[in-house]
């Protein structure tokens, strides 16, 4: 654990709200990106992030430093996301890769990028970003959690293992499967439209 985090946590336990705000500033964007990419909803992401930090504040006196503060925060975020998914799952509509893409400028017809070459060169487009996000949502919850934590938020295998309470081998195996699934689904879509 970073010393600064530990010190701030100790001050939080003494009801020092400024110390807690310092921790919030440090991790709010990380948590926001995790919940947004995991839930697929940037609209709800900020509310979910607020919920994560409220729950963390209410429970911080029980935090014993058995893992890093970041890991503990991701455990809470993961639980919040799972709870939210349970509540909305029955109303959830399956994502279709053929439906229009939502962008900041409204819904647009999907423009299929030329992805026959280097995907990095075409990944700049907003449409492809939306496609990647939607494809991400077609992965199972378990695979999506691992790939978002690792490839987007940069958590190490050990940290993900602690967050999800699974062995490191399982983390690697899920990460492998998630990457293969994601690539295959993106490719099958692109080839299907070519």
């Amino acid at each position, binding site marked *: 654990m970073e010393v600064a985090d530990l010190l701030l946590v100790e001050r939080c336990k003494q009801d020092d709200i400024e110390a807690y705000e310092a921790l919030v500033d440090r991790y709010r964007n990380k948590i926001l990106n995790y919940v947004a990419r995991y839930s697929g909803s940037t609209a709800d992401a900020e509310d979910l992030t607020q919920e994560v930090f409220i729950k963390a504040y209410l429970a911080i006196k029980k935090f014993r430093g058995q893992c890093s503060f970041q890991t503990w925060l991701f455990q809470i975020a993961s639980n919040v996301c799972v709870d939210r998914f349970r509540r909305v799952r029955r109303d959830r509509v399956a994502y279709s890769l053929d439906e229009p893409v939502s962008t900041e400028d409204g819904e647009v017809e999907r423009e299929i990028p030329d992805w026959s070459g280097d995907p990095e060169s075409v990944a700049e487009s907003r449409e492809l970003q939306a496609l990647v996000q939607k494809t991400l949502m077609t992965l199972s919850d378990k695979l999506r959690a691992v790939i978002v934590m690792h490839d987007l938020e940069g958590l190490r295998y050990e940290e993900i293992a602690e967050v999800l309470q699974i062995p490191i081998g399982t983390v690697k195996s899920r990460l492998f499967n998630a990457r*293969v699934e994601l690539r295959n689904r993106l490719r099958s879509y692109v080839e299907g439209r070519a």
Partner: protein
Amino acid sequence: MRCSRVRKLLTDYTDEALSIGVEEQVRQHLGGCRECAALAADLQSAVAALQSLPRLETSPDFTRQLRRHLPVAVALSRRAPARTGLAGWLSYLRSGSPRRFGAVLAPIAVGLSVLLYVWGMHLGLPGVGPATAEPVISEDAYLAAMAREHASYATKQPLADSSAAILRVTLAGTKAP
């Protein structure tokens, strides 16, 4: 290095988490194995596609909103204490309606009833526990008892014919054990 071994290492290879020696072995294998090389490229493409997603940032007033929410959340958490332990339950009851008392007292009453019933069985109190079994008697003893009872009845309410005398003889011949 075999394909199966290389595939197990591809996640670490993609993340550049292998030691230099092992990474070199994997690279050599990929140079000569088209299938494994394609798989490795797929993994790297997936990571690249994901990392093309833009980084999001919280709204500028995120912390201000949180500061406003926290006291409310703290107050709510104190109003609804976890009902663990005696203190938690007492606190729950103190702030509650008669219905809460009912919800708490009904299971206690049922529990006490069961406890008293079991205790009564243990002490052998009358009316508690299963009915005691009747004693087993032989067929002869049963017939003798029936005859005795019948004769006794006939003696008290004698018949006008000779059967009363016969029954008296029967009664005299059967003694209680």
